[in-house]
């Protein structure tokens, strides 16, 4: 078994998300190092895609900025290889299905294993379509992370039953953040009823109060857009600010 689940054993985990290559792979690398130093428990690395249909405008822009630098999947693999010389915390990839499919699913997942990527989040692959990815992920001990949403309702049981690593809970983009927190509790309850697996929630807000409130209900918090926003705002100076933000969040989570 890989070490993703262990991340959730020592309190609420903090999982920052970053789009690789925005503004450059050097900055991404430095940011990952800073985030580990600041206490991040797991890092979600987004592989940029030309048409990120599951993202709002902020992360769409980040994807396009990264691709303007001609960043390829191979460049990102190389960056992770270099990071692995020092970085010890688990990392997962968030990728669009076509990026993985066009690389060759087996070749992609085998490379993940080789470079120390413990999990794969594929936002366009629902339960019904996961088989062609899941069998290969199992073969290489890379967790294919299952996603649930507030609209999943009766689907949650079936999804939780076969989930690996942790369950990624998304909130619908159309609702206000505090309104969302109300379904989180019931979503997680449905997961835990089926299986004892950690549940991490993606949030768009960077508010420490929100994080504090949410931390009581969940096993992990995924910072969806805060880090991306810092990359956009500070460019090559972003790693310093990202490190500080992660430190602040960790302080709240370990209070």
């Amino acid at each position, binding site marked *: 078994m890989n070490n993703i689940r262990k991340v959730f054993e020592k309190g609420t985990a903090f999982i920052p998300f970053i789009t690789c290559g925005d503004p450059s792979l050097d900055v991404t690398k430095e940011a990952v190092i800073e985030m580990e130093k600041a206490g991040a428990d797991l890092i979600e690395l987004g592989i940029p895609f030309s048409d990120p249909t599951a993202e709002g405008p902020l992360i769409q822009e980040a994807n396009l900025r990264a691709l303007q630098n001609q960043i390829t999947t191979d460049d990102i693999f190389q960056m992770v290889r270099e990071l692995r010389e020092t970085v010890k915390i688990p990392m997962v990839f968030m990728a669009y299905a*076509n990026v993985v*499919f*066009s690389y060759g699913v087996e070749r992609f997942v085998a490379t993940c294993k080789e470079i120390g990527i413990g999990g794969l989040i594929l936002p366009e*692959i*629902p*339960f019904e379509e996961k088989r062609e990815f899941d069998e290969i992920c199992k073969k290489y001990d890379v967790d294919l992370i299952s996603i649930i949403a507030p609209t999943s309702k009766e689907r949650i049981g079936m999804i939780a039953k076969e989930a690996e690593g942790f369950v990624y809970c998304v909130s619908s983009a159309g609702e206000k953040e505090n309104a969302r927190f109300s379904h989180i509790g019931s979503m997680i309850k449905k997961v835990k009823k089926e299986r004892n697996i950690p549940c991490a929630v993606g949030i768009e807000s960077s508010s420490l109060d929100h994080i504090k409130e949410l931390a009581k209900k969940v096993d992990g918090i995924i910072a969806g857009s805060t880090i991306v926003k810092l990359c956009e705002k500070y460019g090559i100076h972003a790693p310093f600010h990202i490190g500080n933000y992660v430190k602040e969040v960790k302080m709240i989570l370990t209070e």
Partner: protein
Amino acid sequence: MEKGRFGVHGGQYIPEILMNAVHEVEEAYNKYKDDPDFNRELEELYNEYTGRPSRLYYAKRMTEDLGGAKIYLKREDLNHTGSHKINNVIGQMLLAKRMGKTRVIAETGAGQHGVATATVAAMMGMECEIFMGKHDCERQALNVYRMRLLGAKVHPVESGTKTLKDAVSETFREWTSRIKDTHYVLGSVMGPYPFPNIVRDFQAVISKEIKMQMMEKEGRLPDAVIACVGGGSNAIGAFYHFIDDAQVRLIGCEAAGRGIDTLETAATINTGKLGIFHGMKSYFCQDEYGQIAPVYSISAGLDYPGIGPEHAHLHDIGRAEYVPVTDEQAVEAFEYLSRIEGIIPAIESAHAIAHAIHVAKEMSKDQIIVVNISGRGDKDCAAIARYRGEDLYE
């Protein structure tokens, strides 16, 4: 075949958040597709509102001029709103009403699907919002005005290449944020199951009529059916009832833009490879790392990097042929049909005419071709004039 699959193509590659919404559409469709009341209402609107059946017109001068096969034109351009798009829109809107939805959203490329959706929404009293690439809003400004006139809200999409693919992405995003009261009236035979099936079934009225009209006029089936293909809804509509008639050649005409040996093309079957995008597995124009290519065609309606999964399958099994047609060939055909038959076709449909001109000459006089004129060309006149160097703006 597995549910929702056409060979290896199709499927439901969409975010979890939309899965129940798509299942709801599937359930509603299965419930109503054979329901007599639903079909009575559909047929009545087809006949009374759209003006179906559309004519199958013998293009005598064109036939004589080319000196080969006898050419018939299926006049989908004569439908209300000026294209085949309304066939699918009426069907999906009736479904949306029965599902209790009060608001519809749709993507549009050239604006034909957007206009059809806005039109039927006005007629049925539903709220309507259309997503259209900013670039397409500029090249089809008149259609933007039409949609607004019909009471729809038009959102110019600023992301990516600002064309059809970005409009589709944005409409999916919008659906994700508001599912409860909203139905996504997808305009082509693409996206996740059940959309490719639903849209095909509503468009299949085209080939159903062609078959009947052909039997009346000629007492036999045509030798070839030719249609343009972007996502592929008018083509699948024109092909569907002929798929089992192996003697009928089915030919889809893709937009080659400036040529399939250039990067400025949208010919998916001719230049794309297998991939997963916009909810389906199919062929897509993409680079070696799976990034979707910024495609190009003079026709905003064919300017899409993918093709519907059923077409991908018909290509795989060799049942249909998919040929590239360049901007230049399409423009020539646009002018040719206008001059010789007094019919100005949509620039999309002109791609089919261009290939028909070529094929007819190679066929004998006792053979028959049907070309689907999917839309009328009024919307394209200013753009074609500019292509020919005239300083004409709407």
